[in-house]
């Protein structure tokens, strides 16, 4: 595990979907084509790829930082089986 987390700004994101193609381990698309981001820390072996996905987003909507999204983590645990 690295100590980095991936976040998306839902207002900037317009649903290009590039990120889900580049980083399917961390990003899935919902039924309308918008990214659902894993709230888990980015595994070390995906660090480089995550950086590339962030840079590739045409809307500059992806962010990498050291703070987990606690609420997203709780929701993910609750909702994951339904997604």
């Amino acid at each position, binding site marked *: 595990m690295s100590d980095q987390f991936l976040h998306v700004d*839902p*207002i*900037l994101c317009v649903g290009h979907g590039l990120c889900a193609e580049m980083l399917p381990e961390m990003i899935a698309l*919902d*039924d*309308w084509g*918008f990214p*659902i981001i894993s709230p888990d820390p980015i595994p070390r072996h995906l660090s480089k790829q995550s950086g590339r996905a962030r840079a590739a987003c045409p809307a500059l909507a992806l962010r990498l930082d050291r703070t987990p999204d606690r609420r997203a983590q709780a*929701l993910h645990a609750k909702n994951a089986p*339904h997604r």
Partner: protein
Amino acid sequence: MTAVAAMPVREFDQPQGGPGPLRLLAGPRRGAPERWEEHCDRLGGPVAELMAHLGPKRMIEVVRRAGLTGRGGGGFPVADKLVAVMSHGPKRVVVANGSETEPAASKDNLLLTIRPHMVLDGLEVVAATVGAEAVALVVPGEPAGRTIARALSERKARGNGYPEVTVVLSSRDFVAGEETAVIRWLDGGPARPRSQPPRPVEKGWKGRPTLVQNVETLAHLGLIARFGADWFRTAGTAAEAGTILVTLSGAFERPGVYEVPLGQPLDIVFSVAAPNPAADSLLMGGYFGSWVRMADLGGVPLSRAGLAPFGATPGAGVMHLLPHGTCGLREAHRIAEWLSGQSAQQCGPCVRGLPSLAGALSVLADPTADQTGVRTMLRRWCAQIEGRGACRHPDGLVNLIRSTIDSFSSELELHAAGRCSGGSISRIPLPSRQSSPR
């Protein structure tokens, strides 16, 4: 706005120097705003003088001991928010949120209109506590705006000046009451939420650390500054102290705004408003809320703890009782369509997801439609959408939809068989007027 019911004026004694069972709505309940002299006669002199003795540290300690939580819907501890805003730099500002954009709510408007000085007392207390350099108050409309303006001039005439209060009319769109939307509106932008972080306590109005509190929260705070934490705790439960304003609408003989102690059994809360005994489904916590059955509520305390087993919360105290013979699925669908239309059109999962939710619910609401797989689809979409907007607007509709599917299972079966128990006319208030975003 729901008509304000004429609640019987009760005589009360004042134990420990503070108001009795009615606190915010104590005293005459006529339409006219309370004047400064009446306010001071009833509660004592300017609250600023008390603050001069208390100082910020001790004030926060008093608020913490009182256990005051936000009355705007979220129920967040006020002391924690005060500490948070103090920790993010010196040039702090304060915003009183009286937007009250929920159509079925009218308690904030009532407070601003008949007890303006109670709200301003609380605003003065938080402004002094955080050392605010600017103070704003968002009002839901007129006459609340004029009432507040006059109350401010009454106070100023007495020379107990504190930062000039900027009074601003809310844009009245539903999401405009969300705190980051309020902040953008105050900054001259559109009344739409923004992404977080940064949180308002870090960077809000004017780019400053910003404390946003609901106006009812502030009115309680003003009384806490006067009468103390122990007095505040004489109403409510150990975990949830004080009173709360509730707005009752729908199948009540006397709908309107009432003040009740937290923890009061819900059947007693409702009895003052005379619910129609045949009505059974109640939407608890407003349009983001959950359906509960009146038959289940006897003895259940009005509190977060009391309602948790029902998957509900008091929210901002908005409760709507469905008239007997009204189809809950159709009513929920009407609300869903309306909420979907109230999206600020910024976030994909909200812009695209909410119409999908409303559309699927329209199928369940229609007894002539094929319902196969619709419930499964709704649950899937709810799970996908929850938590993915910049604000909690989509989560509100997700909550309503989940509760609707769970609560109206027999009606769902009826619809699947091509029948419907409904027929009565709905009374759920859904304004059609769309105000123009700036």
